[in-house]
């Protein structure tokens, strides 16, 4: 499912990544950290590397951009051996996103993002344009954020800039090392949604290391579950892994609740959305309120000029102004269409509002998901499962 519905938008800009019998043995160690890893990652897919700590997943990742040199074996990007070029020029062609963003604290947001383009010798105008484009892509207003310093940003915003920095030179392959490990759960879920939304547009080849199986299920087109020594326990789509764990290790790792985990496979976009009354910023309040009253809504979704939801006031709040008012967009909790039903329930619980706004590419408004639709879907899946059994 994940593969087919991600093919809907954007052309693949990623490249195929192949590891052939890759071994990493540290001097003085009896057993190799990576015993012999062979793996093909198709162009334009997200593959999540998961496994217990010390299983060699990070080592495997760092061998792809040669932060760690393999002892033997070959790694090919788009059919080309990564040892053909110098390590530094290879790394400039591979995006790298690290936990917490790892932004350089003494550089502004714009200079952080511009690091790789600058090294590649882009001219100033092109870099400025690219920085603004990327900030917009990761959901930060360029005018507000480009000149800030990392310490003036929240953890989630830093991580967003980190993603933008990794994407800066438009690399075909992007490596992510525990990208969302350092932020709180709600922010993490939003960042995951945004990454999926960005990927829908860009179709890069992304390798993402995580220790969180839920994150792997949510992000990965495929999941690579590794055992000690980077031995592959299973490499398959999330559905296949949940439906048929290859062995006891995978079964234990995925967790006993894996039938409930199916909830994190179902995406918001597969459910029907409701469409309450919307209004544009600056519109006269009168007609908007009338529309809402006719439709029987007690709230109005306010959109900005790019159709992004910015506020979700009650009618009584709308009435107190002559024109429809907007708010800073980041204050509104929304859900990407790629979010899982798990996330949707989470968000509804914290929003104390049994509905949640769903957005698509570049935060464009799609509709509203309500609690009944989710529960109905859950009941239906349960019935189907029982019928099946």
């Amino acid at each position, binding site marked *: 499912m994940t593969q087919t519905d991600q093919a809907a938008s954007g052309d693949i800009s990623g490249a195929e990544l192949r590891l052939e019998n890759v071994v990493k043995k540290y001097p003085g160690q009896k057993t190799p950290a990576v015993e012999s890893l062979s793996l093909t990652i198709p162009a334009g897919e997200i593959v999540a590397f998961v496994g217990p700590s010390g299983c060699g997943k990070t080592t495997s990742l760092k061998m792809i951009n040669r*932060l760690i040199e393999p002892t033997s074996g070959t790694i090919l990007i788009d059919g080309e051996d990564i040892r053909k070029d110098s390590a530094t020029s290879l*790394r400039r062609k591979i995006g*790298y996103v690290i936990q917490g963003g790892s932004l350089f*604290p003494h550089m502004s947001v714009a200079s952080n993002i511009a*690091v790789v383009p600058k090294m590649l010798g882009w001219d100033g105008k092109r870099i400025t344009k690219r920085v603004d484009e990327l900030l917009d892509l990761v959901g930060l207003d360029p005018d507000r954020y480009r000149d800030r310093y990392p310490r*003036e940003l929240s953890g989630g915003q830093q991580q967003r800039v980190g993603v933008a920095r990794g994407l800066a030179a438009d690399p075909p392959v992007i490596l992510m090392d525990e990208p969302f490990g350092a*932020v709180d759960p709600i922010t993490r879920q939003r960042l995951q949604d945004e990454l999926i939304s960005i990927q829908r547009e860009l179709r890069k080849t992304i390798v993402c290391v995580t220790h969180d199986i839920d994150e792997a299920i949510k992000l990965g087109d495929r999941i690579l579950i590794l055992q000690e020594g980077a031995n592959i326990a299973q490499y398959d789509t999330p559905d296949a892994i949940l439906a048929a764990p290859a062995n006891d290790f995978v079964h234990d790792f995925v967790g006993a609740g894996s039938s409930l985990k199916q909830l994190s496979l179902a995406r918001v976009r597969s459910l029907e959305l409701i469409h309450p009354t919307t209004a544009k910023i600056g519109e006269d309040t009168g007609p908007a309120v009338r529309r809402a009253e006719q439709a029987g809504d007690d709230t109005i979704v306010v959109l900005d000029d790019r159709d992004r939801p910015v506020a*979700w006031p009650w009618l009584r709040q709308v009435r107190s102004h002559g024109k429809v008012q907007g708010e800073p967009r980041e204050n509104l909790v929304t859900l990407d269409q790629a979010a899982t039903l798990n996330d949707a329930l989470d968000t509804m619980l914290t929003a104390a509002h049994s509905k949640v706004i769903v957005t698509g590419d570049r935060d464009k408004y799609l509709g509203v998901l309500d609690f009944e639709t989710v529960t109905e879907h859950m009941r239906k899946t349960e019935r189907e499962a029982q019928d099946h059994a």
Partner: protein
Amino acid sequence: MPETRPVDPDTDEIVGDDDVAPATSARVITREMVLMLVVPPVLVAIVFGIFVWWRQTAELDSVEAQQLRWSELRSLGWEHVQLTVVAALIVVAIAVPLGILLTRGKFRAASPVVIGIANAGQAAPSVGLIVLLFLWLDGGFWTAIWALSLYGILPVLRNTIVGIQGIDPTLVEAGRGLGMTSAMTLVKVELPLAVPVIMSGVRTALVLIAGTASLACFIDAGGLGEVLQTGITLFRFSLMVTGAVLIALIALLIEWLGRVLELATRPKGI
């Protein structure tokens, strides 16, 4: 504050995420820093004012008057500043590159040894160091400069090494992972982040050198130590106090200068 997200109509409780940006500015200037920048020059001006008043009104005998001529004081003060600044520049020129080298690859192993030597150099009594060099190189300005530089190297060297080693290693790896060469990582990431620590070492060195420069007069290299020394040998209380006060004022001013430098070189954002 206008309500921005769905609010519970009963409690008016706003529901939101915990991901709120800290409301700080890029450059932090605390009250303490402001005080440190304003108080020393004011203090120096007041004490110097009192000294001028005393100097103009006091009755001095011919020896004192000779030694406390304004032109004499001015040239000794200037010598003192020259000794301090030139020695400090040499210290920076030697200790910073040496410190950087000692954090690179295979040289890292040598850093405890070099720090040990620098420690020993500092532990040696400064008079001893100056006299030793005098025996070897003869007296004069440059001999004093070498002695003072040797004496001031330790804080800068140690802070350069500590400053670079103290950088979050994930930032260095981030630099490498983005495709920076080692030289670029050094210049664009490691050094800027280490600057505050290095500069605080420079300030310490400046103060050390400014104080120790009072001993330069023993090897005929001038400086305000001369007023003090004359006062001691001829037992003129006014000369001793004048020498001590002027040296203290210069040391205070130089320490203040170090603080200004520290603040001015601190990269924005940290």
